[in-house]
Structures are given as C-alpha cells and as structure tokens.
C-alpha cells in the first residue's frame, strides 16, 4: 500500500537520523552556473573532492545570451559565473555541455532530452524547477546551495520526508487546452502554498493521455503551488520517449530497465496524505492577472474581486493589482500587451514551439508587439530549424533565438522594460521577475500565440 513516491524515496534512504531527517542518496545531480560556485568554494575550503563526479552533469543556462552565442559573453559578471562553472567542472571531472555545444540548454530540458533523467531516480539541482524531471517518474526536487555542496561532497542530502499528495485530472480536455492550462488551473484552485510540505503525484485519465513533454510542463510548475516536487508514474509514453536517447540504457540493458520501470506505480490501495480530483472539462485556456502563479483565471473570465477576503489577503491582493495596473472585476480579454516570451523550462520544448508556430502560421505578428521565441536547448533549436519552424516563424514576423533561460528570470539581456506587459510561457509572474517593474501574464503557448497576433489578451479558441 505504498505510493510511488514512498517506493522511490525509501529505496534511496541510507539512514534515518534522529527525529526523521533522512540521509537521501541522490542518483543524479544537475548543476548550473548560478547556484553552484559557492558550493564548489565550500568544498575547496574544506579540502574535499567531489564524491561521485560521474553522477553530476552541468550546463550553463541562466546567464547566457540568446543571440550571438559564438561570441564571448559581454556582461562581465555573467561571463565570470559561466567561466567559474567551466573551471569547476574541469577541475572535478564533471561533464559539462558548454554554450554552443549540441547538448547545451536549460538543464531541465536537456536532462530528459539526453536520457540522463530516467524513471525511479532521485535527482536534485540547485533550482526549484528540478521538479520537471518528475514527469519521467523520478523523485526530483530543487535544493539550495548548501545542499548542492552536500550532494557534491557525499552524493546525499539531509532531508525530511515530505507528505504525499495525489492530484487527479479526470476526463477529456477541451479544445485549445494544453498542459500549461491544466497546471495553471490547479495552482489557481490550490494556491501558491497549497502543496507545501507535500510531494505530488499527478494522475488520472487526462494526465495519461498527455505526451511526455506536456507532462514535464505540469511537473515543472508543481513548485509554484509550494509542493516539494511533482511526479507522474512512468508508462509506455515514458518508455517510447526515452528509447534510443544518448544516455538511456541500450540493448539488453534497455529491456531490463523497462521491466524494472514498469513496476514503478502507486499501489492500488496506497493512501495519500492529501488527494484532490479535478474534472478536465472544467479547464479552459488560462492566464494570470496578478503577481503569483496562483492568481490565474480562464482567459475569458474577469479578475476576481476582494469581496470576502480577510484583511491580510486583501492587502496582498490590492498590492498585486496595483503593481499590474489592473482593477478588480475587469475582463482580461482585450487588455493590450507589449511583449511575448515563448521559452523556459516550462514551455521551451519542441512541442511548445510547434504549437506556437502552427498557430501563427499564415498570420502576422501584431505591430508594436516584441516577441522572443527562445528554444529550451540547442537540440530544440536544431529541430525547429530542420522542421521548418524557423522559416514559418520568420514569415509571420517572429525570430527564433538561441537557447537559454532568457526572459524567464532576465539574468541575461532579455529583460522586459518597466511597466510593460509580457505574455510569457514561463513559470513566474512575481514582481520584477522579467526585469525591474515588468508585468508578466503567464499562459500557455496558444494563449501567447493569440496575443502575439492580436496585440491584446485573446482567447485562442476564437482564432482556431
């Protein structure tokens, strides 16, 4: 009567120490340039080496420019952080996919794409969106830099075991509804702290029908409801996705792995600490109106009012609307926008680019809208060019850039100017997330495409 989460967690517990802190063994650690330098410095200070360098993989992604990647990084601090990552990896025999290399990209895009991420694993990275990898049936979660140092030093971290939660989405999804809409809908119902202390398994008939990449979008944003991580039990979709990928098991090893992975599911009588079920038919294309990912509504709905909120929530709600320049009760559809950003570890994979591109095909980008289409990895970029997406985008007035985290958190040059509105397929609409005083409206690739064409918030179903 164990949950999938229990099975993987317990199989990786080296020891439970006093009062429940677990020494958890980590199968794979991913690192990037922003949250690792202090961890390596810590190891040097202690005079200890990386314990299992072959289980660590690095890719610079947060700071890197999305144009002219063949040139040195212009911004000195970003250049230094990336150079520090390269030298830390070289000194410690850690595999790194440097900028421009065919496997470079956002770490959460390339983990699954190269087959490094596999079902049943424990995976950590100094990045909250590590939950993405859970889509392949892993226990994957974000950690802080002290924990990055722990994992480098011992291939383990100390962690209390989270509670379990299952979210079921049952039934058929409506027209124009994608996996981003599902997760924005869930977070709008449960709130940004609704999953705190829990590890979530997503299940139900609507989840089963989703592609591997669509599942990644859902698990990616489980952190936005506060969950420690999100996961989906592996199935044929998972195995078909992984087969033949560079670091996936090959030959006999593959058959054995699939046999093992096929057993990775929650028992029928497993009991979760928390369980909720939503009807897929209730989900419509979504958009956010506020300054956290829980402040989302269907694109054809009105911004809620503060009626009935307690005073603390009211203060927070008004602060958010003031920041966004919106008023209670207003309609979202028709609001003018300035920027569109398609990309990030949430929606920067090839299926996202295809969805956006085929929507805008034969149409024209609205005048006055600046759009950045940023592939999640070098491989996604290659596919987009080979499949002709770049040409279609170009004809519709859009430009395909080079891979990286880009305007999701604006650590590179891709910043939304103060006061401007950006419809973004990324994961956070926090104040200033895309640049100081920028205003973010989170949505899926279809809502982003509809806004890019019309220049205002638009229900994509009207153009389909």
């Amino acid at each position: 009567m164990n949950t999938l989460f229990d099975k993987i967690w317990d199989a990786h517990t080296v020891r439970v120490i006093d009062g429940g802190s677990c020494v958890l063994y980590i199968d794979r650690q991913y690192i990037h340039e922003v949250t690792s330098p202090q961890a390596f410095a810590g190891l040097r200070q202690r005079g200890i080496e990386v314990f299992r360098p072959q289980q660590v993989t690095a890719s610079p992604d947060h700071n890197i420019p999305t144009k002219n990647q063949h040139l040195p990084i212009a911004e000195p601090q970003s250049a230094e952080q990336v150079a520090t990552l390269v030298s830390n990896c070289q000194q410690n025999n850690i595999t790194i996919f440097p900028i421009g290399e065919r496997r470079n990209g956002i770490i959460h895009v390339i983990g699954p794409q190269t087959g490094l991420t596999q079902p049943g694993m424990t995976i950590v990275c100094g990045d909250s969106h590590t939950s993405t990898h859970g889509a392949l049936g892993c226990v994957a979660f974000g950690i802080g830099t002290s924990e990055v140092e722990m994992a480098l030093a011992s291939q383990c971290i100390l962690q209390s075991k989270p509670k379990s939660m299952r979210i079921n989405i049952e039934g058929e999804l409506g027209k124009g509804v994608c996996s981003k809409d599902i997760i924005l809908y869930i977070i709008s119902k449960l709130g940004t702290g609704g999953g705190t202390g829990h590890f979530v398994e997503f299940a139900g008939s609507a989840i089963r029908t989703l592609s591997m990449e669509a599942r990644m979008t859902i698990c990616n944003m489980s952190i936005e409801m506060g969950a420690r991580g999100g996961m989906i039990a592996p199935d044929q979709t998972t195995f078909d996705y992984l087969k033949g990928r560079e670091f996936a098991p090959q030959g006999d090893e593959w058959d054995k792995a699939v046999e093992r992975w096929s057993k990775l599911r929650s028992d029928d009588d497993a009991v979760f600490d928390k369980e909720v079920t939503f009807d897929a038919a209730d989900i419509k294309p979504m958009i956010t109106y506020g300054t956290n990912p829980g402040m989302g509504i269907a694109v054809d709905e009105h911004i809620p009012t503060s009626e009935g909120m307690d005073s603390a929530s009211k203060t927070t709600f008004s602060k958010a609307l003031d920041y966004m320049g919106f008023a209670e009760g207003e309609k979202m559809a028709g609001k003018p926008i300035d920027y569109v950003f398609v990309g990030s570890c949430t929606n920067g994979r090839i299926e996202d680019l295809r969805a956006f591109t085929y929507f805008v095909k034969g149409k024209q980008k609205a005048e006055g809208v600046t759009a950045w289409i940023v592939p999640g990895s070098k491989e996604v970029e290659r596919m987009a060019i080979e499949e002709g997406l770049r040409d279609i985008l170009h004809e519709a007035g859009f430009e395909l850039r080079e891979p990286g985290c880009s305007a999701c958190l604006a650590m590179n040059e891709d910043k939304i100017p103060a006061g401007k509105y950006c419809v973004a397929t990324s994961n956070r609409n926090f104040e200033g997330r895309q640049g100081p005083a920028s205003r973010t409206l989170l949505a899926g690739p279809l809502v982003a495409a509809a806004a890019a064409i019309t220049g205002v918030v638009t229900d994509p179903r009207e153009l389909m």
Partner: protein
Amino acid sequence: MRNKFTTLHSTVVPLPIENIDTDQIIPARFLKATTREGFGENLFRDWRYDKDGTPKEDFVMNSPLYRGQILVAGKNFGCGSSREHAAWAIDGAGFRAVVSSHFADIFRNNALNNGLLPVVVSEQMLSAIFRAVEADPKAELLIDLPAQTIELVGSDFKESFEIAPYKKECLMNGYDDVDFLVSIRSEIEAFEQK
C-alpha cells in the same frame, strides 16, 4: 562552524504581506556573485530602493522606527525560486530569525542551513505580533530555541514551535551537514553496493 543559536530577544521588522517570494527577497540580477557575501545590502532591493538607489520612505526597513534581528512576514514566506541567496541576504542584513505562519519548504531548509531560524507561529499569533508592533514599534519577541518557544513579550501570546531535533542540534552547536555527511561516506559507499 556557524554562529550558535540559543535564545533571541529582539524588536522586530514587520512585513505583513503574504506569499513573499525569493525574487522579492533578492532579485535575480543580484545572483551573479560567486561568493556568499554582500547580499544583505540588496535584501528586498526593489521594495527598498527606487530605480536610482534612493531609499523608499514607505518601506519598513527604511523607517527608523523598526529595527531588530527578527523579521516577521505574512504567510507562505520564501516561495518561488530555490536561491539560497535569499537566506544569505536576510542573514547578511543582520536578521537571525524569521517568523511567519507558513514557510515555503526550500526556503526553510536554506535558512536552517545558514543558522537563520524560521519560526512557524499560528495565524492568531502572527496577527497579534503585527498588531502589537503597529501599536508600539518597540514590541519585542523572545525566541527560546532549546525550549522551542516564542513569546510576544508582555502579552499572553506564547507558543511552542516545531523543529527537527537534528536541525535544532545543528543550530545550537553551529554544526554543519556537510561535515556530517562526509563523516559517513563509508556507509554511503556500502549503500551504493547494495
């Protein structure tokens, strides 16, 4: 070896806003350093300063009335990005504890790993603290880690709070997880062989 934490008796800096995310605590553009130092001056950067660096008068940290080593914030504090820089910034600005009715998981771990004590109180106690500080900025909290209690000094509000026994020991003695994990490497190697 970190500073040891036992009891803390201090006035507070109140921030009665919910869902304060780590992007507000320390915006991404300040994450480019390769050391742990210097983040304190950019704590709550965009709430605390104008674009040109002028302190915003209406932000609590810029008011001479509110000083102290305890930050008190609305529920779901520290949500969003896993950046430990958020804990470094709070620590760097001189805080030793953060009090809220609910913390995001990663932030809570990051705080504990830096000797910064996250204290969860009930919604009632949190409102009582905000009310007390509004009435008198000199209102004080007494946090007793060995006893696991927090008290609004001079009131009936006193609660016990949870902390994992291991983490409590680490904080009280200034221990560090890396030292512990490295000390059990042979046990980890044996686990790998299984």
